[in-house]
């Protein structure tokens, strides 16, 4: 998408009368900055393995009224047991299909921004942060007051649909008050043929708050999904993230978790499955700013055909962050000789009394294990499937909610059936 085209869409955005003018200066400033830097190219260090041509070549237009569902849509096919759902369809919030548990405030992203007096988060770590601020037009915000334990998980179901090239820019805020707790699920689905979603999620965890964040990226394999997650953790808070990705042509997950209060814990996990020409990319930064925090990054990718993937994990331990305990692990399984994985776990340590471990392995299925299983009578396909399943089990077991784990495990098994016969 060339820059002039972004300008046309931006002008349309600024002319929409239902948007608060309060955010206009913020949009404008971000857009001007975006125009200066443009879409990253492979010459950028953080983007050198990420081919963004599907975004830079296509002409996307903003989703508008005509892209809302024409009639009632059936979401039963996306059913996950035992949760509350908020439905967002091509960027449009569908209130009739949505439900929210008591004790939780649901605001549109813009309502949330208006409510906040000042200092709302507008990071500029990448051009996609800027692009999100410039175009933010959907997504919802969840505010949980202090001491509220939300029992039922809340799911945001993002459906992308249609034959036109749409750009959707969700902005999600999750604010957990002191000692509150929530399980938040983002599920990205849909069969749209050309779709560019640039999503930003801002998470603030009060003291002793707990957020379990699960992201399921299963939208069609022709779409581009960029997600920018920014987490701020206060003392003794706990953030657990798990992404399961089997969809999208280009998937790029950026997470920056800042541990700002002592005793905070952050566990970031991901399982990616790719085939054909998919590219799934994970860039994770865990930033220890204060003492006595713990963190882990644990990512696995299974790659089939000529798909590719990236794990770029950074753990930063600042000078004051003594007694940090952190681990980083990245393991990748190549099911095809043409698949390509780039793994780059990095530690940046400025404190001297810390415990940090990291490791990375990439390889094909273990031939000794395969022979062992076959020598017990399992045919080669079952044996391979069992090994891939075993590879993923460690991560799948980390999903605490039964309904979600069952759902993801089922999707995993379907992928396995379709991809282990190659």
């Amino acid at each position, binding site marked *: 998408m060339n820059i002039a085209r972004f300008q046309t869409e931006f002008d349309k955005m600024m002319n929409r009368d239902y948007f608060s003018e309060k955010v206009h200066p913020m949009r404008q400033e971000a857009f001007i900055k975006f125009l200066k830097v443009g879409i990253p190219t492979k010459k950028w260090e953080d983007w050198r393995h990420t081919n963004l041509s599907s975004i830079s070549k296509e002409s996307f237009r903003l989703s508008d009224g005509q892209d809302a569902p024409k009639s009632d849509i059936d979401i039963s096919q996306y059913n996950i047991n035992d949760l509350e759902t908020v439905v967002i369809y091509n960027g449009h919030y569908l209130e009739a299909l949505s439900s929210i548990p008591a004790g939780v405030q649901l605001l549109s992203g813009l309502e949330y921004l208006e409510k906040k007096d000042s200092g709302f988060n507008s990071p500029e770590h990448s051009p996609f942060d800027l692009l999100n601020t410039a175009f933010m037009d959907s997504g919802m915000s969840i505010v949980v007051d202090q001491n509220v334990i939300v029992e039922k998980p809340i799911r945001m179901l993002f459906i992308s649909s249609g034959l036109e090239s749409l750009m959707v820019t969700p902005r999600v805020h999750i604010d957990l008050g002191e000692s509150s707790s929530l399980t938040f699920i983002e599920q990205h689905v849909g069969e749209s043929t050309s779709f560019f979603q640039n999503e930003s999620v801002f998470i603030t965890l009060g003291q002793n708050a707990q957020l379990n964040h699960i992201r399921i990226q299963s939208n069609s394999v022709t779409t581009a999904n960029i997600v920018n997650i920014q987490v701020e953790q206060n003392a003794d808070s706990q953030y657990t993230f798990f992404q399961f990705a089997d969809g999208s042509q280009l998937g790029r997950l950026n997470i920056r978790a800042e541990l700002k209060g002592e005793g905070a814990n952050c566990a970031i996990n991901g399982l990616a499955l790719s085939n054909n020409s998919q590219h799934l990319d994970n860039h994770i930064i865990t930033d220890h700013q204060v003492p006595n925090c713990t963190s882990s990054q644990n990512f696995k990718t299974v790659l089939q055909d000529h798909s590719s993937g990236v794990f770029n994990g950074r753990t930063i331990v600042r000078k004051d962050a003594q007694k940090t305990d952190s681990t980083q692990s990245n393991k990748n399984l190549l099911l095809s000789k043409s698949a390509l994985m780039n793994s780059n776990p990095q530690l940046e340590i400025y404190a001297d009394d810390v415990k940090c471990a990291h490791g990375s392995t990439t390889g094909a299925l273990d031939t000794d294990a395969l022979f062992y299983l076959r020598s017990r009578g*399992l045919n080669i396909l079952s044996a391979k499937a069992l090994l891939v399943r075993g590879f993923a*089990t460690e991560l799948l077991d980390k999903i605490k909610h039964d309904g979600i784990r069952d759902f993801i495990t089922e999707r995993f098994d379907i992928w396995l059936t379709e991809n282990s016969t190659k």
Partner: protein
Amino acid sequence: MLEIKNLHASIDGKEILKGINLSLNSGEMHAIMGRNGSGKSTLSNIITGREGYIISQGDILFKGNSILDWSPEKRALTGIFMSFQYPVVIPGVNNTYFLKAALNAKRKNAGEKPLDAAGFLKLIKEKLKEVDMDPKYLQRAVNEGFSGGEKKRNEILQMLTLEPSLAILDETDSGLDIDALKIVAEGVNKYRNSERSFLVITHYQRLLKYIEPDFVHVLIDGKIVKSGGKELALELEEKGYSWLES
């Protein structure tokens, strides 16, 4: 049961087996003894179908059929089993799940109905007792965190569960303390009957004190240089292998 005829095999261009002839009848237990590098493990790998070896001459017949072109799973389903010298650790694969899948593959092949979870549990609990294993092993990943002895007992557990007609015990005594060795030997001895054959591959005669072979063969440099009864094992214990080397 098993007939090996003039078997020549090489790996990476190096000839390891140089004309092996061996015939095992139903109910017989044969031991193959030899030093490291004599070709013992190559022989057991080739019988079970591990890839990577080139068979330049000879044949292996199992129950009258040439098996050289058979996949490892076909050999297993037809009744060949090997207790591995180094059982493989398979993270994330639950021992129960694996054993049940293997048993049901075998039942399916034999035209029997698969066992359900309850039926399998009942069966496996009996087998566990025979090798003195705690049921908690079933909940672990295959061989993960198992001691050397536990791994070998797990191999025998698999043998008792899958009920092969030919069991190859590849260096089953290595890594076993005397108590574990006795338990393993007892499991094997109980499993012996007139329908089942064993090929015991070993370096030392230690195991053969507890599992008495009918025949002992000495393998040196890819050839069987001497065959005899169980007393041959004792002779080897006393004299070593060098008197048989040319």
